């Protein structure tokens, strides 16, 4: 999908393949990336209503290599910080802003990375999940 949307004209030479993996295979796939000495760039989360699309971006010099995990809204997402410690911020961010249940983060901010207790939970989520059922978010 990303491939299709990529316009041919822009003079950008980075190749951006995206490989879908299942949640169960995620950590293994990430370990494979680590074995190739790829640098973890970040993860991107998209709230697609009923599910989350989560991209993991890795870089090898000019090339990017991406993994795409799709999980249902309430599912658990394993942390990859055991492999790439650097992912702790972005995983905490996903947890807080989208309400994704990321488990076993090396440095866990318990959903309080950016905001204080009083703020609206999971502001980036299209549907408020967890403690606040849909519709009560705003």
């Amino acid at each position: 999908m990303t491939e299709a949307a990529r316009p041919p004209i822009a003079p950008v030479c980075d190749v951006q393949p995206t490989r879908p993996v299942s949640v169960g295979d995620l950590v293994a796939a990430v370990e494979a990336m680590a074995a190739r000495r790829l640098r973890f760039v970040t993860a991107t989360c998209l709230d697609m209503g009923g599910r989350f699309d989560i991209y993991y971006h890795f870089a090898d010099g000019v090339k990017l290599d991406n993994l795409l995990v799709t999980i249902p809204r309430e599912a658990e997402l394993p942390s990859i910080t055991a492999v790439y410690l650097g992912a702790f911020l972005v995983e905490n961010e996903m947890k807080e802003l989208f309400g994704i249940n990321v488990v076993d983060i090396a440095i866990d901010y318990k959903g309080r990375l950016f905001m204080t207790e009083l703020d609206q939970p999971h502001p980036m989520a299209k549907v408020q999940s967890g403690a606040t059922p849909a519709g009560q978010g705003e």
Partner: protein
Amino acid sequence: MGLLEPLLKISPLTLAAVLVFSPALFGVVVFAVRTKWSRKGVVTVAGWVLTLAAITVFAIAFVSRTALSATLPAKAAPWSMIVAGGDLALLAAILVIAVRFRSAMVFGVALVQLAVVLYAELTGGHAAEAAPSVFIDWLSVVMVMIVSVIGSIIAVYGLPYMKEHERHLGIDEAGSHRPGFFLTMLVFLGAMNGLVISDDLRWVFFFWEVTTLCSFLLIRHDGTDLANTNALRALWMNTLGGVGFAVAIVLFGAHAHTYSVQALLRSPMGAAASLPILAALACLMFAAFTKSAQMPFHSWLLGAMVAPTPVSALLHSSTMVKAGVYLLMRFAPAFHGTQLSNVLAIAGGFTFVATAFLAIGQTNAKKILAYSTISNLGLIIACTGLNRPLALAAAVMLLIFHALSKGLLFMACGVVEHGIHSRDIEDMQGLVNRMPLTTLIMVIGILSMLLPPFGVLIAKLAAIEASVHLPLAMGMLVIGSTLTVAFWTKWTGRLLASEPGAVHPKIEHLHVMYFVPLVLLTVGAVAFSLAVFPLLTELVEPAVTQYYALVPGAAGGVDLSTDVLAVPWLLVFGVMATAVLAPVLVARTRPDEEVGAYMCGEQIETPNGSGFITVAEQSCSLSIRGHYFERYVGEDRHTLWMSLVAASLIAGMFGSVAVR
């Protein structure tokens, strides 16, 4: 003056008997009549008796302005047998202890000492009759005052302390070890008095060994494994020192043919002394080093802190360790002008610096105090090594002020320990909020070790001034004094670190037998400090001048007067007092607003003090630990090499005998 006339009529021997034996007698009463009330009463009375006797001695000396001396008739009793018997009995006791605790070290050392003592007895042991003779000059008076007054105060303080102590250990009145404890304490005081007023070295040696034994008993009082180990260490080290002492006696007997200290001092000494005499002096120094816990023998005093606090207070401030430096001060004129004296100064200076350095890394309050004691004793020894009137005056003043301040600090520490159940100075953080009165006393005690106008500092000033002629020693004094600042300041800082909001805390309740001794010593420390200059010019200076009259070429009084005394101290004290009092007294002292400490904008008050909000919006209470620089000043890193250096300095002392 007239009022004091009758005092002069009191025989020195009577006084001596009171000073030496009355404590022991009272001790026996305490031991025999085992009730709470009798104990309280008798110990207090013993304290009063001792104090009065000491004051009498002081008054007599003050009025008569000469040393008191007297000798019992030689024929009255088989004195030599008595003293020899005493020595042997003590050694036997030590050997029994060694067997009982299976300490090869103690056993070996005691055997060696036995050999030397026997040798002394069998050979020239009878160079002179050992009739008890008393010699009380200003140095003795000072020591008697310290032992009797401060010692008594500590003993009284020990009453409530030991009660609480045993309550903690779960020991009831019936099984109480207190009778034995106070017996030992009182005997200890008597022995110390005996040590400082005897003129005959054999008697000095006897009392010397009594203190060794008493200190062993006191250190192992709690009977734990640690207490036993540490007590045994103290025992063998001090017995080893005793060997040195005994050898010195042998040498003196063989080569000077007298055991009278005064006679010895009048015989050709200093540069004129013969080699064996110098060797004997070096042996005495060795003995003093062990008793005064100088490096490398400092470990026994550090270990002694397992004992209940009154014991520490006693050992550190008024007894035991003071015996060593007393001996050196007593003999200072004898080695004046020798190389030995210089090495002594360096050796003392080294312990002064080294232990001040090690103290920086300690968090245990008693250990800091112990290091500080060792350090100060080193300083006193350095002063005797510098061996000039000014230096000796400094030594005397240090003796007095250190005893006051250290007694005070140990006792305060004991109170704090019972209050907060910790000796860690980190746990004393903000003590000013919890125990303001004790803290105030403690702070005064610490500052009295550190700041002008308190006596310790003035003494240090004199010491530095006296040391300019021995640059190496001077360097040590300067650096040591500087290092001292580090741990005292840090400790005081911990005490004062207070939380806002608790600015006017409630004053804690202190047991009257805590309160009175603490206040007495505090007042003493402050009063003596304020009177430091009269004390110096009126008492110490004449005494020291007199002292060095014996030594040809060491004339000249205390030259401190020229510079330090010229300072308008009245102005200084006045301005300082105003500076301290002004903010307190002037009406507008209270701040308009009391706010919390700055914590980068995230401060909050938590149930256990100030804190801040941090990671994951959690609150975290602020914790600040002092700097101890373990990486740099850690004991385990430095003790070994320092001990080696110190040991070689002692070896150097013996070596210097050869080169004069």
